[in-house]
């Protein structure tokens, strides 16, 4: 085994590695990703570290061994973690200092910071239910992403389904491509399967504008006729009209926490790994409203102002 880097951290490279494969469809970094890159670089600089960025999605990517095996960095922050991720496995096996933004079962040996996607999706459902909605659809990420094992897609789905069941409601989850057209298409599917659907939860910010278009095309005005709530970074949420009520992804905070965990790991290699699960609140903007009964449908409650009073607690 190589020498434990922690022992001579003081004489290390003072450089952190960031393993971050671009998520854009054309192989570019998304706005969201760049926010993380910036956040990590900023926090690292505060600690006196430089940042080395490698687009490695796998340990087979040439940049991975360059960074890790050549010890060009003191530690690595890994992002876009899948359920089975060879980078995490490799790093864990090698005992190389690393911190994960995102998590899987192998990442537990190291520190990680993640969003409670299940909780967020559940919170979105809860928010809609609080507003009186009963028919709540879920728009997830693309099938490919879902299948490739991105954690948040599965976690979100789980959170949604679980909360719906807890509320004795029927879940309707849909996968949706990360583009506008897919957004429009998914709305068509939702409304054709259940035209009485009054709301949806989305984790697909890239398809959001398409979702809005689809709703408009089908005569649903947000938020009067249809409520939309999501998990999204604020630029996406604020660009649409009306602005999306959504749980924010706190990129900056997550980056800072990741660097903090890395510093702990480098300075005290033997301390137990810390795991930080953030659960941001749903920021109320303009895309959700009280459920209005579709004309002709039966009211579900005697007291429309207190729709959930007997359902919760």
């Amino acid at each position: 085994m190589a020498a434990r880097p922690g022992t001579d951290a003081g004489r290390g490279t003072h450089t952190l590695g960031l393993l971050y494969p671009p998520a854009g469809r054309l192989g570019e970094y998304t706005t969201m990703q760049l926010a993380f890159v910036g956040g990590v670089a900023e926090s690292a600089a505060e600690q006196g570290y430089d940042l080395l960025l490698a687009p490695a999605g796998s340990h087979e990517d040439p940049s991975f061994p360059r960074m890790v095996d050549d010890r060009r960095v003191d530690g690595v922050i890994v992002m876009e973690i899948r359920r089975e991720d060879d980078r995490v496995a490799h790093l864990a096996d090698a005992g190389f200092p690393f911190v994960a933004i995102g998590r899987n079962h192998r990442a537990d040996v190291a520190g990680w910071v993640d969003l409670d996607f299940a909780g967020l999706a559940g919170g979105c459902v809860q928010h809609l239910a609080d507003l009186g909605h009963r028919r709540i659809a879920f728009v997830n990420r693309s099938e490919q992403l879902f299948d490739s094992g991105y954690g948040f897609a599965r976690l979100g789905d789980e959170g949604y389904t679980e909360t719906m069941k807890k509320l004795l409601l029927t879940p309707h989850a849909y996968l949706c491509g990360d583009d506008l057209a897919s957004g429009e298409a998914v709305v068509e599917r939702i409304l054709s399967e259940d035209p009485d659907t009054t709301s949806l939860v989305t984790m697909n910010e890239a398809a959001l504008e398409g979702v809005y278009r689809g709703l408009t095309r089908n005569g649903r005005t947000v938020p009067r006729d249809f409520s939309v709530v999501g998990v999204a970074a604020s630029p996406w949420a604020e660009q649409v009209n009306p602005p999306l009520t959504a749980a924010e992804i706190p990129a900056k905070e997550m980056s800072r926490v990741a660097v903090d965990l890395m510093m702990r790991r480098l300075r005290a290699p033997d301390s137990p790994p810390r795991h930080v699960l953030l659960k941001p609140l749903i920021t109320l903007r303009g895309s959700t409203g009280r459920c209005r009964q579709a004309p002709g449908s039966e009211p579900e409650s005697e007291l429309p102002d207190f729709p959930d009073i007997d359902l919760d607690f």
Partner: protein
Amino acid sequence: MATFDQGNGHSGWSSEVATVTLGLDGVVTGWSEGARRLLGHGAPEVVGRPATDLLLGGGAPDATGFSLTGSREWRGTAALRHRDGHRVTTTLHAQPSLDVDGRPRSFVVALSPDPGPPLVQWAFDQSSIALSTHATASGAWQRNAVAQGGGGRAALTGGERRAPAYADEGLLRSVRRVAEEGVPLRYECLAPEPTCGPGATPAVLLSSARHRAWVIELWPVRDPGTGEVVGVGTAAFDSSDQHAARRRLALLQEAGTLIGTTLNVARTAQELADLAVPRLADFVSVDLLDSVLRGEEPVPGPVDAAVVLRRVAHQSTAEGEDVPEAAIDLGDMDTYPPFSPPARCLADGKPVLSGVADPDFTAWIAGHERRNARVAEFGFHSVMATPLRARGITLGVAVFTRGEGSPPFEPDDLILAEELAGRAAVGVDNARRYTRERTNALTLQRSLLPRDLPKQAAVEVAYRYLPAGTGAGVGGDWFDVVPLSGTRVALVVGDVVGHGIHASATMGRLRTAVRTLADVDLPPDELLTHLDDLVVHLATDREDLHPDEPYLVSGEIGATCLYAVYDPVSRVCTFASAGHVPPVVLLPDGTARVVELTPGPLLGVGGLPFECTEVELPEGSLLAFCTDGLVEARERDVGLGLDRLCEVLSGPVTSLEATCDTILRALLPASPYDDVALLLARTRALHADQVAAWSLPSDPAVVADARAQVTRQLTAWGLEEVAFVTELVVSELVTNAIRYGAVPIGLRLIRDRTLICEVSDASNTAPHLRRARTYDEGGRGLHMVAQLTQGWGTRQSPTGKTIWAEQSLPGG
């Protein structure tokens, strides 16, 4: 030619010579009718008696030379005894009656009464009255010394008297008329003082006290024989004193009608000055105590020592608007030293006559550079200072001055000045009292209106309140801006029908009520319902008032009100109206329109519902609230007024203040009959970076998330300093909401001038600030919030309630 009276009741004509014949023995032989008339004796009593019996005292010295011998004519005077015993001095002219031989046979004695010295002529010449005669035929004047203009004979007539102008055309016309018509006439004329000289200008002729007034009596002089008018006699009397007295009376008479025509202090003072110039003085100034101008009650009694007065009015004989004589400009203050005539008159409460001869006067003038220059320039030499006193209080001083070319004031002038000043003082005092009453009413009203509107960020406001014109008195219009929780703001405008103190008082009560109800954060429609109740109660109270109470016609109160709440977060403005003029909104795109509202009933009607109207306003919209006094004029109905308001608003809008002025200029009638309130509000909006709102699940575990989220947000806003307190407040409020409230639960942070933290839920039960006992577990949360924050409160909404807490921000 002159007729005269001998004083004994016997008149005779000089032409009718009494003749007596005497014998040579001195015995009366013949006695004429003329002699009887002269001496009273009849012929039988005298004829045959010696003529010497007729001589007074047995022999008059003048008669001693009388000899009945000789044949010469003889002339002399003799004192004869009248039949009734009195003396008759006669001129005797004896002529012998000769016979053929030339010897005297008898004597014819002609007796004529002795005229004595020419007293009549002398009296005419030396009369103290200007006398003259005018011969009709020749047109020649015969004037006595006075009539000729004094001259060398002035001493005889007291030296002062001057003659009237005999060349006066009016006089000559009268003379002709008397001659033609044969009737006596009286002619009155004013003649300038000779000292004025021929160069006297009309202005000078108008001036006071430089004229003599004459009354000239004219009568026809007839030939006693023929009765034909042969001349005209005149006697001129100097009536200057009577004339002056009449003028004074006329001045006082005018003072009664010309001073005090308005209830304006300065105007009344000016009226005094205008009236007194030029008839009493060349320059008049009126100075008042400053307190009088403010309508305050001056200290009763005289004013002591050096006194500070404000120049309120002055007037002079100078042409044009300017008063070059004035040493003090209108509206300026001056201090009068204690020895100065004005200060002296104020101290004594009596008028003071002074002039160049008075060392105090010269000292006073010398002590003031500008005054000194004016006195020198205009030759002021005589001055009267008269206190303006009414009802026992001293209000100020009027100073009357005469300059070069005018005689000094006389004591009579002082009396006149005092009388004028007295009348003016009453007028000034009336005006002062009115000013005070009106000021009081306006003060009351202004005190009931907002002075400095509270600072708030939701709207930028500008406002105007204009009381009605003097006739209508104060009114009952009001407006208000009430900051509400969550950076919202209530905009209020209302109008109590009617005028006077009572309308103002009612307005004050309604305004207070609106403020109180707004603080409870009632929605507009509910607020008006409560206000309506209040007005109904007020009206009931009023019916119990004393029936003599003025202003009360009936117990009913008519009032309108428009209440609007603007929320800068949602940019929604919610209006409710109780019969009030609707507001006008100018959108940022430049279109202005009347906001369509459900009008609602008037306040005080009771029982009818009010309705809310919600309007979403783009940021920068301009709302104009007004009362009917602005848009409703006598010749214009409300609709037209509102259209006009829209039109004006559509024009270029610079600042709100300037827009206020523009609106008033364009819409206000020349003499506003009703009072006017105008409130302009330009809406602001709070943007995404100032507001953060989150939805909270009703799960106790969320409290920690909420705290974390709030900290995250405050970090993003750079407000880490207040994070600790905010976290505590949020924990408390969120915990309460989860424990006692109903979903949906919302959390909101608003960063404005302060940091506002709001937690809302769907339950309508409001929390109460309980006083927790030592071992109570609950009841501390809100206490803590109250301690930690600047303020907290609750408000109801159609979907539940909101509890808010406000913290001041560092540097905010």
